[in-house]
């Protein structure tokens, strides 16, 4: 009896989340829409070593936009584009909602951080204004926890994923042939989906070493088990 009541209470919730959850676990109706968990992990936290991103706790509208951008080719990726194309709009919406409902990355607000010039932390917290590069946290929020649905969290993502994205916005210039080496063709940028072109010039103007360092900085923030009290200020 008690169990029945419990189930009855739970049913509407299950019905609500089932669609997105099913897609995560088993994929979409179209078999080309593979289960998300095979790359993004059973907990939605991604696979750091492979550079598959965390989706857990990302803003719903952000995920919807990324899936649409993969579909339209504004964000190019050989793995994700066929999957995004195989998901219909309803499926994309419900899987985005399901991921948004998983726990967000949790970062403790530390004391004021004093980064060393030339470090990844410096780019993250101070930027490189002589090249018009704002500190990442200015838009992505203190500790890179993300702001609204346009500025996704950088905390909680792996170094490889962040580095790959910066390189995707940047592309790589051609390397002319040397005496013993062959010419390497330029790789054009594969991401063109930054709102108002806010990211591309930043990626272009960062050096490869800076990209690596700043990606490692955010990956190194880890995740705290202790909940953060949102009534407290996060200091810059």
């Amino acid at each position, binding site marked *: 009896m008690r169990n029945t009541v419990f189930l009855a209470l739970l049913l509407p919730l299950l019905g609500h989340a089932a669609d997105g959850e099913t897609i995560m676990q088993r994929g979409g109706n179209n078999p080309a829409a593979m289960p998300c968990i095979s790359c993004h992990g059973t907990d939605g936290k991604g696979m750091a070593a492979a550079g598959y991103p965390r989706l857990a706790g990302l803003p719903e509208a952000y995920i919807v936009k990324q899936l649409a951008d993969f579909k339209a080719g504004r964000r190019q990726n050989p793995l994700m584009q066929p999957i995004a194309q195989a998901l219909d709009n309803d499926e994309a919406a419900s899987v985005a909602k399901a991921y948004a409902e998983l726990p967000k990355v949790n970062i403790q607000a530390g004391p*004021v951080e*004093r980064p060393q*010039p030339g470090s990844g932390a410096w780019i993250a917290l*101070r*930027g490189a*204004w002589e090249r*018009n*590069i*704002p500190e990442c946290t*200015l*838009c992505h*929020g*203190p500790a890179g*926890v*993300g*702001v*609204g649905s*346009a500025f996704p969290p950088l905390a909680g993502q792996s170094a490889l994923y962040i580095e790959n994205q910066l390189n995707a916005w940047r592309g790589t210039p051609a390397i002319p042939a040397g005496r013993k080496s062959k010419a390497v063709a330029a790789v054009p940028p594969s991401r063109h989906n930054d*709102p*108002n*072109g*806010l990211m591309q*010039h*930043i990626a272009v103007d960062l050096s490869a070493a800076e990209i690596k360092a700043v990606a490692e900085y955010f990956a190194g923030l880890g995740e705290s088990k202790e909940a*953060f009290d*949102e*009534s*407290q*200020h*996060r*200091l*810059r």
Partner: protein
Amino acid sequence: MKKTAFHLLLLTFAVGHAQGADSLRNPRFDDQTQLPKAPAKTPSQRYFQPPADTEIPNNAFGDQVRRGMDIFMNTKALAPEYVGNEMNCVNCHIDRGRKANSAPLWAAYPMYPAYRKKNNKVNTYVERMQGCFQFSMNGKPPPADSEILAALTTYAYWLSTGAPTGKALPGRGFDEPPPPSGGYDIARGKAVYDKQCVICHGENGEGRKVGVTTVFPALWGKDSYNWGAGMHRINTAAGFIQHNMPLGRGETLSDREAWDVAAYINSHERPQDPRLVNGSIDETRKRYHADDGVNLYGVEINGKKLGQGI
């Protein structure tokens, strides 16, 4: 003896008079019209370069520089009793007060003390900062001898290391673009806002927060600068916007777009000018806004007189 008494009386009268005039006039701390115009930078010229962080000494002075920098970036969190809205110094002084044409501290600090006609006295740098707290932060000025202003002064002094004293430097203030021919247009400004600004500052200019921490400042409404702040002038906001917005993509908007969007932003209600005269918008306009650059305080827009406060 008689003569001394007379002189004393005269002095008392003079001092009393000056004080009376001051409190009556509510000194206008934000007025910069008495400072010489910052010269334009020649193409080959470099802006003044403030010292690098690595040059902050590891001693009591260095500690105070760092404390000032922390308050500068986290004003609401570290000086909450003096900040009435959700602004931080660094919102208008990009790159921690280092960036040219974003009112850099290295160009401001060496220009004070400066005489200002409007309050008929010599204003110190500390008084200038008190103006920021009163108007831009819609709060109350920290006492002149407070730890907060001592730290902020130390930070500004350090940033000005090597800058000439009393010499207007290129990059000071916001280097305002000339007004567009045919005037600014608020409706055109809304189109610029919707396209370029909404993503960070929100549809209603409300800005965006993470928890209680402001990430993108409010551009109008209760969390923004008040009607007495320099930024309420369309010409001033146009300068800031043209050089610094969108963040990291400064100098991509045209002068006209900067003026239009500045007019749109400053055609919205914001906290009252704390110098409000006799509760009257018209009297306040006459005394403080009529000859203060281009502004919409007390002007009727869409059938509503601006300057009601919020």
